[in-house]
């Protein structure tokens, strides 16, 4: 490298625009000089200084040994999982989940089973039967009507009987009719 190129690099160096590679070239140039070019003395001193500083041993074995001992001591002091940020994050998230699900479960469990309007399952069963039979009969009757459509008179009578059927169901006042219905059921 000639002086001209060196000077160009040095300008770049002064402006802190050189790469590590270019700085290395400068260092090598100045290290290998047998003769100091005019005006470049300050650089020579500086680069030589930097060289000597970087030659210093960077490893400190004594220190490393001390630190290793320190780590071993610390390691044995804490056998449990460290409460670092990550662990705390996960634990609190899990706690949140547990809290919410527990609340939901407890609230749901405490809801008393809704028994509806009956206390007695037997009565309820009978009522359920009646309701379904009523629906069934009405449905069937409706469809049967289609086939009986020619019999106009009987059609009207049918409807009348349907009315009777409706009132026969007695507006579902079950309790007062309890004896009658149970007798009826038993007779079937």
């Amino acid at each position: 490298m000639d002086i001209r190129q060196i000077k160009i690099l040095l300008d770049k160096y002064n402006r802190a625009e050189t790469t590590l590679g270019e700085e290395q070239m400068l260092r090598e140039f100045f290290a290998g000089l047998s003769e100091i070019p005019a005006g470049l003395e300050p650089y020579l001193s500086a680069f030589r200084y930097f060289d000597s500083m970087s030659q210093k041993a960077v490893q400190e074995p004594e220190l490393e040994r001390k630190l290793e001992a320190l780590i071993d001591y610390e390691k044995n002091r804490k056998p449990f999982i460290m409460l670092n940020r990550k662990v705390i994050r996960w634990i609190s998230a899990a706690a949140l989940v547990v809290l919410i699900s527990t609340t939901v479960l407890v609230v749901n469990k405490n809801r008393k089973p809704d028994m509806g309007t009956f206390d007695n399952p037997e009565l309820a069963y009978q009522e359920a039967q009646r309701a379904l039979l009523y629906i069934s009969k009405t449905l069937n009757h409706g469809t049967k009507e289609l086939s009986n459509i020619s019999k106009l008179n009987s059609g009207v009578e049918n409807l009348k009987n349907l009315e009777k059927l409706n009132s026969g169901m007695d507006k579902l006042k079950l309790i007062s009719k309890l004896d009658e219905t149970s007798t009826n059921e038993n007779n079937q």
Partner: protein
Amino acid sequence: MDAGEFKEKVIPLSGKLFHFALLLLKDHAEAEDSVQEIFLKLWKMRNELAEYNNLEAFAMRVTRNWCLDRLKAKKPRYIESYSLGYELYSEAENPLRMLENTDQMTTIRKHLQTLPEQQQTVIQLRDIDGYEYEEMAAIMGMNVNAIRVTLSRARNSIREHLIKIGNYGHPANQNSAR
């Protein structure tokens, strides 16, 4: 990171961290104390160390921040000489030259110590330790441009000082180096 990995990856950085701490604290004992504290801190966060791309730059940054905090907390004891000396780049061929060099070294070292901390740090990190600009930015918590500006200032300062006090005997050439 478990203990073994920590010993493998982090402990070898102790030398660099120590010298950096030394640069900042200017006291061997304090530097060593600091490095121990810093390593304890790194140990405590060992599970998160894997997240850092450049462990060395991170450790250096921790060191710098720690040392600067420490300096703020107490008045630094200014000690004339490093208790840990440095080995000179031997140029044993020319004893006179070597002597000259020693003077030069001392001069430069002394001048560096008068510079603001940031300038001292950039010189150490770049011209001595050879970090990239990006690494320096990460260590110092500055952007790359700011790093370059600081570095440029520091280098110019060294050079101007050397020219001023150096008896190079070429007054006419003083300007050509700029």
